[in-house]
Structures are given as structure tokens and as C-alpha cells.
């Protein structure tokens, strides 16, 4: 079965640079979530989209923005990168309706390293 695809899998950037992470949800899923997991930390919710509209907002810094496109893929744009942004970024997808899923399905993550 098709899973959530994230690209790139690894990304190395310098401080103050920008980065764009991409997420392709499971086909027919209408909701996308972004999570950030720092070293030794729990995944923290950043932001989510349902039917191309922002649905919930978590601890996403103002330097970050995201959107969901007409084909339901999502991009997380990160500017003025800081060393503390180094983390694993997960995307998850789900189906809100009809016949909603009871869980989220996670992609393999993008490991961002800021030097």
C-alpha cells in the first residue's frame, strides 16, 4: 500500500539559509500534519491542513510557513534557519471524511541539520 512520502530524506543547511520540506500524503487522504522531533525529544505538533486550509496550529515558529496544495501535497518552508532547528521533521496524513481514519499515518521523516 502507498505510504506517506517525504522529501528530501536528509538536508544540510547553513545558519540563516532557507529550507523547503515536501510531503505527499497517502492517496485520498485530505489532512496533513507536520511534527518536529528534536534529539531525544518527543514529536511536537507544528501545523496541520484539511482540504488545503490550515486547520490547527501548534508550536510553529513565525519563521516557518506551510501550505497544502490542490493535489493535497504539503510544503513546510523554513527561513532564517537556526542551529536549534536541527531536528527530524515528520509529516503525517489522515482522512477526515467520509469514513475517517482513526489515526495518522507517518512518513519516514526529513532529517534537517543546520550548521
Amino acid at each position: 500500500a502507498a505510504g506517506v512520502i517525504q522529501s528530501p530524506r536528509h538536508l544540510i543547511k547553513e545558519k540563516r539559509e532557507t529550507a523547503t520540506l515536501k510531503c505527499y500524503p497517502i492517496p485520498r487522504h485530505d489532512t496533513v500534519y507536520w511534527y518536529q522531533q528534536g534529539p531525544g525529544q518527543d514529536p511536537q505538533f507544528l501545523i496541520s491542513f484539511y482540504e488545503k486550509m490550515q486547520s490547527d496550529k501548534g508550536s510553529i515558529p513565525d519563521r516557518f510557513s506551510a501550505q497544502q496544495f490542490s493535489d493535497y501535497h504539503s510544503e513546510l518552508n523554513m527561513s532564517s534557519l537556526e542551529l536549534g532547528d536541527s531536528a527530524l521533521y515528520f509529516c503525517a496524513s489522515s482522512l477526515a471524511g467520509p469514513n475517517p481514519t482513526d489515526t495518522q499515518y507517518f512518513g519516514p521523516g526529513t532529517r534537517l541539520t543546520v550548521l
Partner: protein
Amino acid sequence: DQQVKQNSPSLSVQEGRISILNCDYTNSMFDYFLWYKKYPAEGPTFLISISSIKDKNEDGRFTVFLNKSAKHLSLHIVPSQPGDSAVYFCAASSEFSGNTPLVFGKGTRLSVIA
């Protein structure tokens, strides 16, 4: 403030024995709980969930128990197999569904020794 706590960073169990992973939460608004398993270089994989209207949910070798009064849940794996070795995350939501932003614990690394 950590709303979902997994106080054991690691656990080692012999193959064939029971593995018990614990999770505590502080937010009384949480009404849906999930367990995810994570292998290195992969994303979390959904394992089992439980709604707050139940106190037990079973799926094969996996059983989740919920004690609402104690704000505590546990995942039992019986019998444990070497392939169960992974990091296990407890997660919670407040909308009777996993289809909503989740609050995670820090995870427990389970090692099943053959």
C-alpha cells in the same frame, strides 16, 4: 510542561515474556490514546488505540489498558518477540479521534533479547 509522560526511557525483556510499557498523562481533556512503534530511519507506525469510554483494547499480542482515574495507560505485548525491539511512543488527543493533532511522550526503547 510534559502532558504525556513515559518515565522509562528503556526496557529490556526476554523473548517470550511480557513487555509492559507505561504512560501517564496530566491533561484531563485527553479522551483518545494511541501507541506508535518506531524503527530507526522510519516514521512512527500506528499500533493500537483506545478511547476513554473503554478501559481495555486488544489486538493480537497487543493490549492497551486505560485507568482514567489514575490518568495512566499501559501497553502489554505478549509474547514479546525480537522484532518488537523499537521505540514506543504514547500519544493523546482530545477529540475522541487520532485524526487530530497528537501530543506525544518521549518514547520508551524496548529491547527484546533472544
